[in-house]
């Protein structure tokens, strides 16, 4: 399955090359023309079946995931690190990681409970209290295989069991997988699919990608937090698993263009597909950057709801993702058939 395959690949913001190579290989094997820019964004040109029918449509999904960056190697051979993107540091403790281009295995250790004072246990651990242990005997030993500046990604096995998909980086490999799924289908119109970089550190890839493409309409395929957990009140759920893909009305970076949002709703209703609205107003997506590129773009966001994003293991439902693919598919066809007056 594309999502789980993509999930396994390390690709922290700024270090997306292995995800990009995986996607490139797929594109080449399907005979889809593609190129990259200097930041590492990957552009795929999907040819429409009807010649010359340029839709002015850009679809995008970010390839990067949150992770860590080695900041120093201690005398003992332990590695200190910075966060890259919004890693939930509470979920870092005692998790395995892969360090650097050669995937050196390491673990984020924690002081044994037996050695802690009662007060100590009540305080959350800060990133500066944590370090990565790769089993090195000392600094020199560690520096044979890792160096300052190496990227670090979570190590966790992706899995599919029935309807349930789990793994790291489902935000936003689920979006990449959906975009790849779309690219395998035939459409009457041409459009550009962009796999962006550095979303998690400030939508940085999308800024330049959109400037290059200057689309008229953009739809961003994302993965968003589902907070439908017992510790959150109903109004704080944002999205729920199993309620279909979520349409963004507003987040911290964008107010979705009403024409795009209306069309998403229209095609979802027509196809009788479940969908929901994202009910949390915070955090940003590439759509924010894209909407402001050049002279402005009508942009919207469709997301797969996902629990425990930005943590070592997240969880989503295949049916939600499948509905995202189908609604996106219908959206593209509808934009071609009916046009989309902005």
């Amino acid at each position, binding site marked *: 399955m594309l999502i789980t395959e993509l999930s396994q690949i390390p690709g922290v913001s700024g270090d997306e090359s292995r995800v990009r190579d995986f996607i490139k290989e797929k594109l080449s094997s399907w005979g889809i023309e593609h190129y990259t820019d200097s930041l590492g964004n990957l552009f795929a040109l999907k040819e429409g079946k009807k010649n010359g029918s340029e839709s002015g449509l850009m679809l995008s999904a970010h390839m990067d995931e949150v992770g860590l960056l080695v900041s120093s190697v201690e005398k003992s051979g332990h590695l200190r690190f910075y966060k890259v993107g919004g890693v*939930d540091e*509470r979920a870092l403790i005692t*998790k395995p990681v892969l360090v650097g281009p050669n995937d050196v295995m390491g*673990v984020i250790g924690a*002081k044994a409970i*037996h050695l802690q004072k009662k007060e100590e246990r009540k*305080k959350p651990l800060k990133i500066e209290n944590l370090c990565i*242990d790769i089993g090195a005997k000392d600094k020199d030993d560690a520096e044979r295989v890792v160096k300052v500046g190496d990227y670090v990604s979570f190590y966790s096995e992706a899995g599919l069991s029935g309807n349930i998909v789990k793994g790291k980086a489902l935000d936003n490999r689920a979006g990449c997988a959906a975009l790849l799924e779309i690219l395998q289908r035939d459409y009457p119109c041409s459009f550009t699919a962009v796999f962006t970089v550095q979303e998690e550190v400030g939508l940085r890839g999308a800024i330049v990608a959109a400037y290059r493409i200057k689309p008229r309409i953009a739809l961003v395929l994302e993965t968003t937090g589902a*907070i439908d957990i017992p510790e959150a009140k109903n109004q704080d759920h944002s999205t729920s698993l199993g309620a279909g893909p979520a349409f963004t009305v507003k987040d911290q970076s964008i107010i979705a263009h009403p024409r795009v949002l209306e069309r998403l709703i229209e095609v979802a209703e027509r196809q009788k597909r479940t969908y929901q609205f994202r009910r949390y107003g915070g955090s940003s997506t590439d759509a924010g950057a894209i909407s402001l590129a050049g002279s402005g773009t009508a942009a919207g966001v469709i997301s797969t709801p996902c629990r425990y994003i930005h943590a070592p293991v997240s969880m989503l439902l295949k049916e939600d993702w499948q509905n995202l693919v189908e609604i996106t598919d219908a959206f593209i066809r509808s934009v071609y058939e009916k046009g989309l007056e902005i």
Partner: protein
Amino acid sequence: MLDEGGLLKKVNLHDYLRKIIQIDGVSGYEDNVAAFISETFSPYVDSTRTDNLGNLILYKRGSKKDAPSILFAAHMDEIGLIVTKIEDNGFLRFTSLGGFDVRTLPGQEVTVYGQKPVNGIIGFKPSYLDLDEEKGQSVEMKNLFIDTGFPREQVEKNIRIGSIAAIKRGFLPLLNNRCAGKAFDDRAGIAVLWQCARELVRIEHEAHLYFVATVQEEVGTRGAIVSTYGISPDLGIAVDVCHGDFPGAMEHEVSPLGEGAVVTVGPNIHPLMAKRLFETAEEYNLPCQRDVSPGPTGTDARAIQISLEGIPTALVSVPLRYMHTSVELIAPEDVKIAGRLLAYFAAGLNRSFLEELSCL
């Protein structure tokens, strides 16, 4: 006749460790680990039995009839979770079997043992939803939950209150042959016993040996209490793990990895047992460290010493970093050395040593 040489070669210690830590055996639910231990020890022991609480007792006869008997105890249980409540939406509330640092649990994967095992993730609330009084406080176990992804109806068909969940973690190979994973506390100790048993294939010993894989250590050395009573040995050695060195540790609380077995001294330990262990290490050139414990140790040794009429007891440990987490980290060479140390110690046991011990 068993091809003992062949068996010794077939599975190495590293493989043994890799296999044994991946078997789930939460306190009170050690059956699968016991089956593995029983099978892997069978070439080296004369008889095997299981007692009322599930302790696995592996007996290896010595060469002399009235020679002393010694109990080697390593616990086979690991800390784990147990379901206390099923929420309306199918999320599982839990409490622990053994001592967890709750801060290590968010985002951890587990295997929930319903009628069929299912995967789960320990879910937690995103920090932006924290109430003012929760800010700056670590998460509490009662606010965590296991998410299997299934709705309540499906959950209830498979899982009930009292279902066990084990921490899910593979074997993580690191530099220098070191490795990390869950349950090295105390499967590393079991591996020490296994190594010892293998060494004794070629070392003659007068003493009668009981290798005991104990249950329920993590909830209060419960297995050791009853198995020691049942065996009634002359001597006892608990084999466990001790805190390895890590950045920020107090030096006196930890023992460095890769520098051999650790022998504890203190009131829980018979001084002549410890002395004999150090002497044995020196005689056979085995690196050995000294650890100090000022009261009853947090190991099976605390139970063994005060069983019956009192049993001369020692504690041999393997240094381990990040104890009671899913990334416990050890250096396998320490396991090997500890196994050898026990084997040579066992080989040197006789009646006269036993008599020395009783005259303090």
